[in-house]
C-alpha cells in the first residue's frame, strides 16, 4: 500500500502515519485482539441495557451540571482544598504548569520524581521538561513504564503499552534492564515491581493525575489497579496532582455513578482495585502520607472549548477510553497514528483545542462518522456531531471568525467552489436532471482511475437510466393502466 503515496510528504500527517501502521501486521493484530476483548468486557459489564442507558444519562447530567457552574465549582474546590491543607495552583498553559511543578520540586531540592499514571502530565510533556532540568521523572504504571523505557508515547489512554506484545516487552526489559528474557507475563510484571519499588522509596516527589476532583469535600479521587497511584501519592514527602479544569464535580455522591461508568466502560470492571480519595496532606499525628499536597489545575485550551456551548460537551469526558476501544479507525491504525497525546475519537475532538486545529487538520476527517464512539461514551458526548462541527470550523473561510483556535486551515476556494456547484446541481431540478441525463448516457465513459476511490474499488458506473427516469415511466404506466380500468 505504501508505494501509492510519496510517504515522505505524508509521514507528518495522520494519513501518512496511518499508512505505516496499516502495513505493520503485528501492530494490527495486537490492536484488533485487544480492542475486541475490551469491547466484550464492556458489553459484559453492562448486561442490562436499561440500567446502562439510565446511568449514562445520569453521568451526562452530572457533568453538564458541573460544567454549567464550572467557575464557581473551581473556586469552591480551591477553597475546600486550601482548608484541608492542599496548595492549589492554576496554569493556563502546559509551560506554566511545568514551571509550577518544577518550582515545587526545586523548593525541596528534589531530583527524583515518581509518577502515577496521568494523561495531563503527558499533555505537559512533564518528563521531558524535568529531564532537561536534571530531574528524573519515572513512570510507575506498568504500561507507562514500558512505554517510557522504550522512549515511546502511550498508544492508548488506559492501556499505554497495548501496542506491544509480551515478546516485545521481554526484549525491551532484557536490553534496558539486563534481565533474562521470558515469555511469562507474571515474571515480567515482577521485574517491573522490583525495579520500581526502589524508585518509590527514593523519590522526593510523587506526581499523579486526578479522575474526579470533588468540590464539596475538597477531595481528589484516583482510580487504579496496580497500587502505583497509591505509592506515588503516599510514599514521597510531596505529592503533586495535576489535572484539567474540567475534572471537578460538585458533590461526593456524584462520584457513585461516574465511578461505575468509568470502570465499567474502560475495562469492564465493576470497580478498580483501588479507589483512592485524598483530602489533604499528612496530619500532625499521622505516621505516613506526604507532608505537602499540591494540585495544579491546567487549562491548556479547555476554556476555549468551553466558550462554545456545543464544543463544551467535549469537557464531559472522563477519559475511559471506550470510544477508542470501539473505534474501527483506531483499531486499525493504533494510537501513535494520531501523533498526539490523546488518540482515538476523544483525541480527535479534544486535541484541536489544545494544539490548534491547524496542527491536526486531518483529525476531524479521519472518521467515517459511524457513531460507535458516541454510542458507548458513558457521559454521552455526541462525538460524531462534534467531529462534524470541527469539519465546519476546518473549512471556514478566513473572513469568518474562527471559533476554534487554528480553525479555517483547510479552507480552499476550489473545494468551496465545488460544493457550490454541487449545491446548484441539487437545488435546481432542471440542472439535476441534465446531470442525470448526462451521467446515465455517458456512464460507459467513466474513467477507470478515479483517484483515491479506485485504489480500493472499481470505478462506479452509473446506471443506464436513473431512478427519476424509471419511476416516471413506471408511475405513468400505472396511471394510464389505472385510467384505462
Amino acid at each position: 500500500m505504501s508505494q501509492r503515496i510519496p510517504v515522505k510528504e505524508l509521514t507528518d500527517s495522520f494519513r501518512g502515519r496511518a499508512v505505516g501502521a496499516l502495513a505493520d501486521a503485528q501492530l494490527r493484530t495486537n490492536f484488533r485482539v485487544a480492542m475486541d476483548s475490551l469491547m466484550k468486557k464492556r458489553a459484559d459489564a453492562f448486561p442490562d441495557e436499561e440500567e446502562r442507558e439510565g446511568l449514562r444519562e445520569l453521568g451526562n447530567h452530572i457533568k453538564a451540571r458541573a460544567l454549567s457552574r464550572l467557575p464557581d465549582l473551581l473556586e469552591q474546590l480551591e477553597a475546600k482544598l486550601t482548608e484541608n491543607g492542599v496548595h492549589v495552583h492554576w496554569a493556563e498553559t502546559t509551560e506554566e504548569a511545568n514551571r509550577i511543578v518544577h518550582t515545587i520540586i526545586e523548593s525541596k531540592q528534589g531530583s527524583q520524581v515518581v509518577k502515577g499514571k496521568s494523561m495531563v502530565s503527558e499533555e505537559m510533556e512533564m518528563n521531558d521538561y524535568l529531564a532537561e532540568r536534571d530531574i528524573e521523572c519515572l513512570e510507575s504504571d506498568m504500561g507507562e513504564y514500558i512505554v517510557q523505557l522504550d522512549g515511546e508515547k502511550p498508544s492508548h489512554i488506559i492501556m499505554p503499552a497495548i501496542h506491544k506484545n509480551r515478546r516485545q516487552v521481554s526484549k525491551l526489559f532484557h536490553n534496558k534492564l539486563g534481565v533474562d528474557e521470558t515469555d511469562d507475563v507474571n515474571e515480567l510484571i515482577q521485574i517491573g515491581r522490583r525495579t520500581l519499588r526502589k524508585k518509590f522509596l527514593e523519590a522526593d516527589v510523587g506526581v499523579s493525575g486526578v479522575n474526579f476532583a470533588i468540590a464539596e469535600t475538597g477531595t481528589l479521587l484516583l482510580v487504579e489497579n496496580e497500587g502505583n497511584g497509591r505509592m506515588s501519592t503516599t510514599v514521597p514527602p510531596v505529592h503533586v496532582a495535576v489535572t484539567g479544569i474540567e475534572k471537578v464535580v460538585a458533590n461526593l455522591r456524584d462520584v457513585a455513578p461516574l465511578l461505575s461508568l468509568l470502570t465499567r466502560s474502560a475495562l469492564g470492571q465493576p470497580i478498580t482495585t483501588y479507589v483512592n480519595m485524598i483530602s489533604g496532606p499528612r496530619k500532625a499525628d499521622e505516621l505516613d502520607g506526604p507532608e505537602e499536597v499540591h494540585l495544579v489545575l491546567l487549562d491548556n485550551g479547555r476554556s476555549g472549548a468551553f466558550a462554545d456551548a456545543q464544543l463544551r460537551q467535549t469537557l464531559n469526558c472522563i477519559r475511559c477510553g471506550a470510544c477508542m476501544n470501539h473505534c474501527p479507525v483506531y483499531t486499525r491504525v493504533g494510537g501513535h497514528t494520531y501523533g498526539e497525546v490523546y488518540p482515538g475519537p476523544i483525541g480527535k475532538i479534544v486535541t484541536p483545542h489544545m494544539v490548534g486545529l491547524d496542527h491536526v487538520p486531518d483529525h476531524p476527517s479521519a472518521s467515517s462518522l459511524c457513531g460507535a464512539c458516541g454510542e458507548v461514551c458513558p457521559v454521552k458526548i455526541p462525538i460524531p456531531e462534534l467531529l462534524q462541527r470541527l469539519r465546519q470550523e476546518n473549512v471556514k473561510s478566513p473572513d469568518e471568525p474562527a471559533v476554534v483556535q487554528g480553525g479555517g486551515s483547510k479552507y480552499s476556494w476550489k473545494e468551496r467552489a465545488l460544493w457550490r456547484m454541487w449545491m446548484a446541481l441539487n437545488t435546481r431540478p432542471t440542472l439535476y436532471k441534465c446531470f442525470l441525463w448526462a451521467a446515465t448516457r455517458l456512464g460507459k465513459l467513466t474513467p477507470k482511475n478515479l483517484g483515491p476511490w479506485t485504489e480500493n474499488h472499481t470505478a462506479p458506473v452509473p446506471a443506464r437510466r436513473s431512478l427519476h427516469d424509471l419511476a416516471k415511466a413506471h408511475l405513468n404506466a400505472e396511471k394510464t393502466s389505472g385510467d384505462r380500468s
Partner: protein
Amino acid sequence: MSARDNILKKLRAGLEGSTPRPDQFDETLVTEPWQYAPEDRIQRLRSLMETVHTEVYTLAAANWPAKVQELLENRRLANLLYAPGTGHGQQLAEFWAEAAAEQNLLAYDRPIEEWKEELFWQVDASITGTAGAIAATGSLVLWPDRHEPRLMSLLPPLHIALLKASEVEDNLYVMMEKQNWPAGLPTNLLLVSGPSKTADIEQVLAYGAHGPKELVVLILEDA
C-alpha cells in the same frame, strides 16, 4: 492578571446569560440495581472478591487471631505488621503473647521516615481493620488514621483485612449516606477490591503489581 483570574474570567464569559443546570440526581439509578437481601449481601461480596483472587473466610468473631496465625504459618511468613493503637491490634497482641506465636509482630508505631527500608523490603504481611464493605462492587472501605496508617494495606505482599459482617452495605451510595462521608473524610479514604493487579501486558492479568500480591478478608460474624 493571574492565571487563575484569566481562567475564571474566560469560563464566566462562556456562561454569560445562562443559568446553572438544576440538580436532577436520581439516586434510584445507583441504588435500585444494587440491592440485596441480607443473606445474599455477603455472598455477593465474597464471590466478587474471589473472582479477583481475594481469599475470603467467614468466622466467629472470637476466632480471628488464630486464623491469622494459621494464614501466616501456612505461608511460612516471618512477621506481621499491625496497628497497636487499635482494638483489633490489641486483641491480636494479646493472642500472640498467649499463644507464644513465633511470627514477629511489627507495630506500626513510628513515622515511616524512621523505618522506610524495613517497611518496604522486610515486612511479610499486615493486618488492618475496615470501615465496612460494599456488596455491589466487592469492595472494602478502609479509613486509615493515625493508629492504622495508609501504607499498611499497600506495602506488605500479604494484606489481611478484618470485616464485620454487619458492616457490609449494598452499594457505594448507601455507604456514603450511612457513614455520612461528606461530613468529614479522612486524609486518605480507600476502597480496596482485591490484591494489586495489572493487565498492561497483552491484557494478561498479573497480580502483585505494586501493592499486595494477596488479599485475605476475614468476615467476622457477631457472636
